């Protein structure tokens, strides 16, 4: 691999600060609504489904499957794979698949969380499981 790609540090805000603090400790947190029971990502204080303010943080396993992806070949920093992955806990999220053979990605493939450093909190990425 070439020199590690530089990723922007999260700006963070009062609503999401706990997510990024947990990330620094290697914990991947998602939000669960105690009113409707659904989990969501990225984290909101008010549930985007039932609009209850009774949302709580819970740690996710980091296990996921690829919902879809696209290998972007027209990039000054080299090809990269954008993807949506579906977490074992339910929610799907946008990410990049990294550190594996990007030519062999498949929808439905199992992937796992990896953190990539920034000048601030690390960012969640996924790689072949």
């Amino acid at each position, binding site marked *: 691999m070439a020199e590690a790609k530089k*990723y*922007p540090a*999260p*700006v*963070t805000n009062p609503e*999401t600060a706990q997510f*990024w603090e947990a990330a620094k400790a290697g914990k991947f947190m998602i939000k669960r609504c105690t009113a409707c029971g*659904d989990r*969501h*990502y*990225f984290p*909101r204080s008010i549930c*985007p*489904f039932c609009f209850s303010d009774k949302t709580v943080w819970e740690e996710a396993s980091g296990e996921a499957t690829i*919902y*879809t*992806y*696209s*290998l*972007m*070949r*027209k*990039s000054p920093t080299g090809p*990269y794979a*954008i*993807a*949506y992955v*579906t*977490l074992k806990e*339910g*929610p*799907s*999220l*946008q*990410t*990049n698949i990294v550190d594996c053979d990007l030519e062999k990605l498949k*929808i439905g493939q199992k992937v796992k969380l990896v953190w990539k450093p*920034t000048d601030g909190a690390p*960012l969640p990425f996924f790689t072949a499981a």
Partner: protein
Amino acid sequence: MTIKGKAYIAGIYEHPTRHAPDKSTAQLHAEVAKGAIEDAGLTKADIDGYFCAGDAPGGAWPMVDYLGLKVRHVDSTETGGCSYLIHLGHAAEAIAAGKCSIALVTLAGKPRTGPMPPRAAGAEADFEAAYGATTHNAYGMCAMRHMHDYGTTSEQLAWIKVAASHHAQYNPHAMLKEVVTVEDVINSPMISDPLHRMDCCVVTDGGGAMIVTTPEIAKSLKKPLVRLIGHGEAMKGPRGGKDLDLTYSAGIWSGPRAFEEAGVTPKDIKYASIYDSFTITVLMQLEDLGFCKKGEGGKFVADGNLISGVGKLPFNTDGGGLCSNHPVNRGGMTKILEAVRQLRGEAHPKVQVQNCDLAIAHGTGGLLGVRHAASTCILERV
């Protein structure tokens, strides 16, 4: 309350340029405004409503001042490339409510001359910005999943570009006038899997404008009468990541609303302007609008079904964004303009649909695979 038949498109203008390094963006707005006002047979002093989106330098008040307008109604709804389809619906609402009587809508800019300013970020920024979503790969992700779920092929997608190129050969202003084949498309370089270079639209400088007015004023003018009879708008995003499905667009909601208001069905449509930022955009929207069942878009677009005079649903007879023009990376305005030309009987004779009295103009804005808006306009010749 309905906007059905309450507003007419009395003037249209598409800038002939595709590359304008010698002009300012505001100037292009003024040139398309002038063109549309003259096409309608009106003067600038007649304009009492102004609509613009994120491409207008500084937004509505600098533009109103720059153009020297005196308006009593403004609307700067920003929904990317479909802003102008939404503006048409909103102009009809404003006209029906008596808030203005002659509305000007402008679009212009120069992405071919220089880079565009970055898209404004929302609450998701920290959780998405690092992953490099662009138009190409966001639409690529939709195409990839559509292929997975429904067996759609690159060859089927290529037929959309082939149809657009058949139309573009007759448009003297089209950026790409060469007729291409399915093989040409699938042999063009892969940009973001599974989209090839020829699955992507052109990048052009330029713009377009329209005049929307009351039935009475339209009837006092000289142009053939074209009116809006149905309009819908909707938005879609990952919504917290629940039940993610990238194989449909917000057109699944905007389309039925517009058809219901118009009192017509997809089977009645004689001509379709469908936003073609990428081939997959067209395929998904045709399904979402009900021209075929979900998942059958590939079969529907194949074998020239979108070519005027050949297939059942002539589409983008100006060559569309895939071949002719995609000013400011925003295709909604040119979709309306070609639909009006078809309804007026002013399209190129080689692509003019016979007895074209009912058309659809539909588009999305934003990133289809991330967050986007959609708007549907049903237009009728009176």
